[in-house]
């Protein structure tokens, strides 16, 4: 057991976290203006865009993975880390956009208008008024996106292959261990994943409740 632990290859975890970190960061900057636009828009195309955004939540990962495989084949992105990042961004898109949009929509419209009346542009209003007032939604968006990417499996299986250090993330590593019936490693990897996920979620809930106790997020 101890020998297994000391020889444990941690690179799949590092890769999982790297993928989740890059995806969350990129998605945040892409989703922020988009979620803001959706929250403020009264356009007739809004339901169409919302449906498109939510699509990855209901599509089987294999369907998404298949399309990515077809497209990435043309641009030589299959079995690369960049390919994984792009696929993860699209796959986790609704998890970032929806909490942000919900947060923006729950804001007092008069508060945003007060900022416009003070002569501030939409961009400044978004940055200095809207965003700081949706902290719980922002935190939810970041954490859910991050965790969702850590837990990603189906899409990566389709387009990632299992190249160590490049596309072999933790979930894929566990799958391979089970396939070769190396159950003791699979146990350790799974337990680590379980613990990390639980600690991340626990800290979010502890933070959220502590904020509520002191009278909200300010």
């Amino acid at each position: 057991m101890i020998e297994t632990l000391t020889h444990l290859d941690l690179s799949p975890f590092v890769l999982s976290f790297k993928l989740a970190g890059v995806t969350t960061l990129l998605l945040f900057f892409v989703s922020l203006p988009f979620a803001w636009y959706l929250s403020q828009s009264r356009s007739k195309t809004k339901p169409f865009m919302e449906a498109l955004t939510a699509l990855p939540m209901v599509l089987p990962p294999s369907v998404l993975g298949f399309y990515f495989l077809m497209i990435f084949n043309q641009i030589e992105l299959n079995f690369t880390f960049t390919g994984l990042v792009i696929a993860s961004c699209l796959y986790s898109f609704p998890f970032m956009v929806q909490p942000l949009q919900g947060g923006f929509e729950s804001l007092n419209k008069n508060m945003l208008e007060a900022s416009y009346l003070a002569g501030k542009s939409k961009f400044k209003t978004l940055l200095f008024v809207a965003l700081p007032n949706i902290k719980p939604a922002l935190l939810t968006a970041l954490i859910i996106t991050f965790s969702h990417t850590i837990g990603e499996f189906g899409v990566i299986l389709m387009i990632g292959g299992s190249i160590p250090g490049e596309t072999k993330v933790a979930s894929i590593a566990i799958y391979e261990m089970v396939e070769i019936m190396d159950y003791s490693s699979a146990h350790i990897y799974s337990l680590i994943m379980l613990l990390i996920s639980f600690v991340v979620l626990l800290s979010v809930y502890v933070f959220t409740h502590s904020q509520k106790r002191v009278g909200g997020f300010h």
Partner: protein
Amino acid sequence: MLQIAIEKELHGANGLLNLELKCDIEQGKFVAIMGKSGSGKTTLLRILAGLEEAQGSIVMKEATWLGAKKPLAVQKRNIGFLFQDYALFENMSVEENLLFVKKDKKFANELLELTELTSLKKESVTRLSGGQKQRVALCRAMMNRPQLLLLDEPLSALDSVMRLKLQDEILKMHRAFGMTSIMVSHDASEIYRLASRVLILENGKIVKDGTPKEVMMENTKGLEGELLALNEQNIATVLLGHQLLEVTFSAQEAKGLKVGQKITLAMRKTL
């Protein structure tokens, strides 16, 4: 001079309403707008602020706000706006709310002193009472030294003591900075204290326009009550709602009055 001639179709709770307003407001005046809910009062303020679109024209001094090819953006109109729900930036302290509008610490401090808020300037606005919040909102609205101050029932959520205090402060600001102010209000005493002109809106049109005395006295239809007793000195006891009132009639007025009869009391114009 603020020249307003606007039209807008509103789809409200009472069906379709055609807002059609035309009036000129002199620089530096304090104008009150009264009217039933759904008569278009708030919409008028929002159109003036540039928060809602409309047809027609709005000209403020030399500048065309509405009526040119493109309406002037809300950011460029230099307007102070007081909302009923204060609409403060909740992520900021009292002082930061003011400085967000304009980075002028000296002026912010002056305003806070004027409204007796100096001791609260580092406090988060979420911890303030309603009256304090509206005073912060008033200071914030003044930070850009607006040429037009719009007030949308700013005091209706406050108790009567706080309302009086804030009326004083609004008046103080109005006089100190000489801007034109337009306030939507339902409170006749507030209008009497603050405004020099009253517009009454009904179904999107101005139906009355004059000084508070002219408009609101005409508006008084009298108080209907029940005559409970009438003694030999012609002193009548009248029930007005749940309130008893003694009224002295002249012999001529008392003639023909019968106990139990409904009568209307109106005040004579002596002011």
